[in-house]
């Protein structure tokens, strides 16, 4: 029951964050969502449905190894994609339409990454003032 509740809370929080403005919030939302799914897979385990695949033996005291292997793989993949997403949060901030700074996208392109960064820092600094 507690597992089901935590999956529900994590999934709800994740969906809420994904629907927010701002790439960082979206990333955090996905982190929570993947946690929810990982817990779901762990909860899916159970050895009562089948015998031990080799050598027979008593499985009543055993944990189901398969979901653990699944979750391990899924965590690694989610980690990799979170890094990719984090890259998208810092690269090309000029056209980040998840951020909606002043509602309009720049018409002119970007000459270089540095200039873009300077500009965006300038813009955000200007807004704060």
């Amino acid at each position: 029951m507690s597992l089901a509740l935590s999956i529900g809370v994590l999934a709800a929080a994740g969906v809420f964050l994904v629907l927010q403005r701002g790439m960082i919030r979206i990333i955090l939302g996905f982190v929570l969502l993947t946690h929810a799914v990982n817990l779901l897979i762990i909860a899916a385990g159970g050895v009562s449905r089948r015998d031990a695949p080799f050598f027979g033996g008593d499985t009543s005291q055993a944990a189901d190894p398969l979901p653990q292997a699944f979750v391990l793989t899924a965590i690694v993949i989610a980690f990799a994609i979170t890094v990719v997403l984090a890259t998208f949060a810092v690269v090309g901030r000029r056209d980040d339409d998840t951020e909606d700074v002043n509602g309009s996208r720049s018409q002119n392109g970007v000459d270089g990454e540095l200039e873009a960064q300077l500009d965006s820092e300038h813009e955000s600094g200007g807004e704060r003032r």
Partner: protein
Amino acid sequence: MTNIVELLLPLFVGAPLLLGGILFVVPRHHPLQLIMGMGSLLALLGGAIVLLILTFDGTILVHQIALWPGGISIPFVADSFSSLILVVAAIVSVISFQYMIASGEAQSPFIASLVLILAGGVGGALLTADLFNLFVFIEVMLLPSYGLLLFLSRRGDMAASRLYVTVNLLASTLFLAGVGLIYAVQGTVNLAALAGAGDDPATAIATAVCLGALAVKAAVFPVHGWLARAYGSASPAVAALFSGLHTKVAVYIVYRISSVVFEGDGAWMTAIMVVAALTLAVGAFVALGESEIRPLMLFQMVSGIGFILIGVALFTPAGLTAGIVYMVHHMVVMASLLLIASAIEQTYGSGRLDRVAGLRTREPLLTAAFVISALSLAGLPPFSGFVAKYALVLASAGAGQVLIAGLLIIVSLLSLMSLMRVWADVFNGKRHKDVELLAAEERIRQREGLFDGVVIDSDAAAAEAARALEQHGPPRGVLASGDPHDHRGTRIPLRLVIPALMLSGLSVGLGFGGEFLLQLAEHASSALIDTSDYVEAVMGR
């Protein structure tokens, strides 16, 4: 022979991944990048053709990873269906990569590696018979795709890449949740062990979660909206590559799951039928209203996904055969049309219907490729589209779905209408006065590595345009009017046209060889109707 190939099945995944990894450390401009990249894609194609020949008589090749007994190991399976799709996916990869080499995009960092890793992921997703393993291979396909989008996003438009990553991550998470639910109900994620489990409502719902996630990846209505935006600002060659691989792999898995787990259960197939009919109608309608070539083609692609899914929704031998033929046809023709669109965009700087005009007299070879591909997509003989659509309409009518058969024909007319708009504006329209300047601006942007939005100094553009006129000068001199915009020299280099020509040639070949293609698809569909051989082979019984 069969035994050796069975042992080598994991190489379809392992070899591209390994070579892709090696290419990461090869210097960026080293010729080895392109030689090894192209060589391994061609080898993949060769291997896929060998698989197709070996599985032609209904043989099913199985390799249990690490030789664990069937039912416990992760199985790799090649039957006539997966081999056929693997062959076409390899063809699309080879030709898209050829286009990337021709357009110079392959010079960007790591492109060859990323394409190889993507190909490896596709191989794995098509061959594996384990749902969790499938999830892993979908991720293996997606990660290099993010890289390709990032490195080749010429427009400085990261927003589309962000959209692509988030949509796919959400769908993957949903798919993983579905796999977890299936494991919770059945205690296994081996596809063969799940055969017929769709009778159990809990398993059916868990599997439906997976199908829903795949629907997002395949861009099925109502979750199709991301496709045109995400692919619309990717590099065009990348869009062509993805169109042949990502969405089609998702559709392939829908076919596989529907046949093995649901065994064509009526209620579920009706649900797929409704969604497919809406997808094909909505895609064609939206395409009518687009004002740029690429989004227009991308919505045609959404429409095509609907056509393919009608095949599995019918779940009759004729329906599945027609659906598989349509899938093959659509992968080839869509890649061809997208490569044509990209050749136009890269040369003339714009794909807007109102800004490019008069290509019919100016670019004869490209026009030929476009006419063939467009007529093929619309479904006119003697091209592959005719075979596919004719078979699909016959199958729908044969299964008593007369309404669907009528819808297919009406939607084909809508597709023809939107393609006629491209023909009328871009190919047959009056020569736009600015076309020469637009092309010159685009060449300057490419030469100096600028993004698309950058405003080019008008004097520089005029000078470039004049220089180009001098260089590519009209073969028979400027026309009598003396208007410098009126000349007939081609602008699109031949090397950018050849990939599209090859694909449209293939479409013609598949049209004339329709009997052969139908025969291949019939073998594939018989394995989908009767899954007992598949299950026996995978479970090792």
